């Protein structure tokens, strides 16, 4: 679905990515874990064509139009209602205004936002804004979904419910997902969590976050991830090498 090969990127003199490579197979959920500042968001920006890398290749089988990205923050257009925000991408792809509006409303309903269609972002809670952002992306029916610490700013309960709702959709649509996070628990939602290795998460799906946590395999896996991650961070400090450069 997506192959990132040896991407090198620096802002000015400071190297951020040095030969970062990873692969997302069709229909798979891949997590990429790294500490803050390790270049995860930068990598996604390169994939989306928002940032030009110094070197490396992005191979997207489906083309950018098939990729949806959920950013770390939910910057919705403040001057557009929830409905208009969701309709935006549909209209950009040629849907007529009423058509896009209807489609947007049905996505808002699906995200549990019936009755909030005409609210401006300012008038929504953080969780609701996130739901609008999700509807905005899913309404375009992407086949690859990139997520950049999508729920980092939300409280635990909202976060849990949103994760569940989103995962259900992902499983239902068999979306390919690349989830980027510094949060190991979030990463373990997917079957492939990578720091420098590929981990198989042996927990049956669909998973519930609470059930998954209670699963006997969860603890040891988390422990291993933590250990590998702290080694990476140690390396980062010791040699100022950026950690995200191994094959997933």
């Amino acid at each position, binding site marked *: 679905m997506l192959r990132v090969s040896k991407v090198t990127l620096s802002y000015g003199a400071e190297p951020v990515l040095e030969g970062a490579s990873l692969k997302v197979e069709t229909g798979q959920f891949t997590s990429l874990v790294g500490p803050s500042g390790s270049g995860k968001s930068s990598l996604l*920006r390169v994939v*989306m064509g*928002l940032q030009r890398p110094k070197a490396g290749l992005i191979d997207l089988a489906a083309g950018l*139009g098939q*990729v*949806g*990205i959920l*950013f770390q*923050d939910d*910057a*919705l*257009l*403040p*001057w*557009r*209602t929830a409905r208009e925000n969701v309709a*935006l*991408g549909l*209209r*950009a*792809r040629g849907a007529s205004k009423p058509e896009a509006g209807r489609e947007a409303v049905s996505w808002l309903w699906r995200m549990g936002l019936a009755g909030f269609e005409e609210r*401006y972002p*300012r*008038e929504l809670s953080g969780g609701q804004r996130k739901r609008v952002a999700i509807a*905005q*992306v899913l309404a*375009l029916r992407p086949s690859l979904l990139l997520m950049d610490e999508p729920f980092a700013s939300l409280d635990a309960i909202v976060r849990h419910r949103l994760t569940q709702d989103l995962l259900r959709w992902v499983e239902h649509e068999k979306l390919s997902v690349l989830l980027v996070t510094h949060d190991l628990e979030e990463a373990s939602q997917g079957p492939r969590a990578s720091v420098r290795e590929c981990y198989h998460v042996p927990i049956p799906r669909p998973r519930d976050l609470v059930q998954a946590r209670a699963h006997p395999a969860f603890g040891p896996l988390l422990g291993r991830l933590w250990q590998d991650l702290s080694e990476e961070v140690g390396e980062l400090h010791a040699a100022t090498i950026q950690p995200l450069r191994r094959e997933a």
Partner: protein
Amino acid sequence: MSPNRAWARQLAALAAFLALWEGAARAGLVNPFFLPPPSKVGGVLLTLLSEGSIWPHLYATFLAAFLGLLAGIGAGAVLGFAGALAAYVAELLVPVMILLNAVPRVILAPLFVIWLGIDIESKVALSFVLVAVVMFFAVYSGIKDVDRRLIERVKTLGGGRWVLLREVYLPSVVVWVMGGMKVAVGFAFTGAVVGEFVASSRGLGYLLSFAQSTYNAALSIALVLLVIAFVLLLFGAADLLERRLLRWKYR
């Protein structure tokens, strides 16, 4: 000390101030020739308005300020927009605007009179230059720091230049224009009145210079009050417009 009584306290303070002023004038503490009491100023104001001779002057000033304001906002917004989006436009415009911003633009008034005559054109021109420069900077810097995240968001949703313009840049310009509106209104009147001051045959500025040459302090103060009333009127209109255009902010 509830804030919703603030207007009552402000009104009381104003009344006290006027009473003090009136009293001081009547008691002979200030020379009414230089500082005529409020009752006198009020009388002049009433006569001006009831006589009707003031209306053509008010109309002239208001029209000049209003036209200058509209044209200045339009030109400032368009140029600011162009400068922010095209580097080579900015290269040419920004130095000129900085220069125009640095000098007191009213020094252009005599030149405008020479070029455009003593009628309304020269006043509109001065008003226009004053407004256009502030609007340019409001819009230029506003567009320059449009939230990058919004631009990227729209791009990743498949939006091209046109969608970006319609969904991000234009709404941002409205925000910045409305933000600069009050300053612009003030400048528009400055331009009109100063223009009339320099050379004219009607307008509040013309009356002011007449009041000055006849040492008529009461008339001067009455005219100042009229200008203030006008500016406040336009402020009110600008507020209404802002609430309409920026509904997403105020609802």
